[in-house]
């Protein structure tokens, strides 16, 4: 068993990881350069290759959707808290159902490059303020999630070297951030797609193979795996019952429900996932792609659950908790036990590539929102030339990347899960109500859109500021201060209904749009204009 302080891997493992990671990065960087938009066309930069097969599209969607948090964070949560962690994984898979059933096809049929284009079709008269508000929300979500990914890379490095020095930390963030900027700014969507596909294939095969090894260790007896996990968890059968993490009081139970609500509704509204939905050329290809992605996401979630249980069963909860308090090391410890240094190196390389790919997708989504919605339509009022908008998009990718790096360096000790959960809550309470109303509610107006976008954003951020995340508990940002009047750590339970309510209120109080606008829009979402 390996308990060498904070480090999981030995020197050989570290070198192997580095070599593997560098080769993946070099190959994908070259491909990103080769497949980069040849002509200066914004459609190619925003949407990439529109004639990909459903399987490849599905892999790219799966790659955008599953972050390193699923691989390391969720499995760690399962390893430490059992049942509650499994619920979390289940929520990740259920959230894709929202995309499949409600969002994907109408959005593609009515969309062009960004979500702003869809909203502008529906709310023609006030499209500039709506685009501005939407760009603001997109920027908030992507920056938070990007910082979470970059801080996650430092946390991952900690697994290898122990607590990194300030120089190592800066170097890690700057190197990862620079690679991300190159993918997004030069490669555009074609480059990002390639790394997503590479990452998805690595993730799916890596996780499945390790899960098969775990099951093989227990002779394919699921009950034996559960028994061993319960025995080594330090809490007996309580490990397989709800409430180990979120069961202390009614408040924490509500907190958990609030988190699940934000995950199920928020993951479907993340900007980089929605941008990916616009790429397929026909709606039948999109349908098959989304179904492929559903299957792949479910497979990864099930396998991650087995990995988490296997980590507790084989390595033991104490070792996992000692190595990393949040449990992020669970998969790597398990890999070391099952397949030695080689498997550990493979999985840690996989984790770094996952970080990189999700960060590239986020940077691209933020850059296209800034360039297309903010610069192209709000500042230049639709008169910008394609080359001009493309230059702005590339510049915006650099700016977002640098901003993300700076924020990650300032807040390197921040809890990545908190940042990601806040991003989900904003997506669920600002973008999702606007999207659902736009697609399905005849009476929706621009005032409603503005109110729900700005209100949802403000509501989620303010509730987190006045929650135990920021003050009043020893683990919060300012432990000595106490202005936490909101008891839950996750604002979703209040902010998501608030977002929907504000959108309704704003629409009812304002003058209705002409009915033809919605009728034309609805025909477009249903029938499509291929």
């Amino acid at each position: 068993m390996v308990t060498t302080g904070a480090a999981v891997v030995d020197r050989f493992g570290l070198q192997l990881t580095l070599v593997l990671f560098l080769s993946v990065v070099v190959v994908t960087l070259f491909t990103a350069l080769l497949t980069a938009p040849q002509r200066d066309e914004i459609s190619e930069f925003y949407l990439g290759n529109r004639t990909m097969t459903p399987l490849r599209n599905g892999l790219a969607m799966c790659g955008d959707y599953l972050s390193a948090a699923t691989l390391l964070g969720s499995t760690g949560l399962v390893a430490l808290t059992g049942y509650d962690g499994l619920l979390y994984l289940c929520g990740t898979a259920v959230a894709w159902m929202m995309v499949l059933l409600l969002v994907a096809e109408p959005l593609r049929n009515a969309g062009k490059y960004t979500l702003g284009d869809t909203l502008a079709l529906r709310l023609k008269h006030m499209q500039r303020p709506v685009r501005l508000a939407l760009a603001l929300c997109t920027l908030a979500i992507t920056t938070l999630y990007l910082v979470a990914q970059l801080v996650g890379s430092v946390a991952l490095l900690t697994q290898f070297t122990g607590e990194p020095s300030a120089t190592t930390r800066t170097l890690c963030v700057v190197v990862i951030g620079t690679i991300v900027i190159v993918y997004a700014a030069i490669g555009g969507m074609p480059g990002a797609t390639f790394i997503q596909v590479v990452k998805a294939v690595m993730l799916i095969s890596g996780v499945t193979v390790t899960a098969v090894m775990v099951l093989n260790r227990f002779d394919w007896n699921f009950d034996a795996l559960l028994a061993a996990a319960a025995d080594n968890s330090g809490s007996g059968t309580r490990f397989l019952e709800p409430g180990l993490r979120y069961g202390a009081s009614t408040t924490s139970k509500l907190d958990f429900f609030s988190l699940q609500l934000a995950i199920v509704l928020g993951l479907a509204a993340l900007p980089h996932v929605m941008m990916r939905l616009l790429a397929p050329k026909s709606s039948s290809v999109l349908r098959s792609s989304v179904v492929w992605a559903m299957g792949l996401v479910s497979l990864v979630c099930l396998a991650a659950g087995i990995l988490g249980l296997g980590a507790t069963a084989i390595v033991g909860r104490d070792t996992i908790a000692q190595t990393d308090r949040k449990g992020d090391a669970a998969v790597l410890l398990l890999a070391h036990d099952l397949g030695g240094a080689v498997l550990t190196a493979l999985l840690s390389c996989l984790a770094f590539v996952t970080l990189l790919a999700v960060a590239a997708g986020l940077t691209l989504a933020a850059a296209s929102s800034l360039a297309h919605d903010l610069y192209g339509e709000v500042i230049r009022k639709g008169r910008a030339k394609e080359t001009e908008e493309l230059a702005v998009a590339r510049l915006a990718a650099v700016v977002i990347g640098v901003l993300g790096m700076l924020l990650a360096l300032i807040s390197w000790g921040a809890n990545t899960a908190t940042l990601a959960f806040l991003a989900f809550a904003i997506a669920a309470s600002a973008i999702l109500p606007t999207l659902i109303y736009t697609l399905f509610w005849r009476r929706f107006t621009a005032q409603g859109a503005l109110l729900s976008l700005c209100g949802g954003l403000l509501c989620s951020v303010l509730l987190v500021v006045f929650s135990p995340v920021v003050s009043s508990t020893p683990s919060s940002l300012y432990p000595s201060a106490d202005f936490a009047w909101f008891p839950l750590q996750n604002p979703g339970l209040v902010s998501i209904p608030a977002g929907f309510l504000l959108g309704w209120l704003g629409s009812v109080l304002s003058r209705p749009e002409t009915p033809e606008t919605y009728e034309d829009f609805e025909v477009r979402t249903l029938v499509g204009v291929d």
Partner: protein
Amino acid sequence: MSHDPAYQSLRRAHRRFGSRSTAVAVGGFLLYVLLSSFAPGLMNSSLSGHLTLGLALGLGQFVMMAVIVWRYLVHMRTRVTPVTRGLRGLARHHDEVAARGRAAAEPPVAPGAGEFRPW
């Protein structure tokens, strides 16, 4: 097109299916979370060995998702795609008729113009 009876019935059927299936998938999951939090006694009842009702329901979520995806594909294939294909053809036909009408109304362009364009 929005007053076409075929379009109206498509719209209604699609909305009904979308709202019901989403309610079952997302609502079912949220109900499962609430049951786990507030009715632990029920969820901890053992089915066989270490497999409790809660864990079995968790696996059941994945089965339910698979069933809903299958129903969705069947619904799209049998109810939606044929109708949209017909409506799309209709729209194209209307466009062509309108374009021909416009072409007839507009004065003809000078003969030969636009035929031999330099490249």
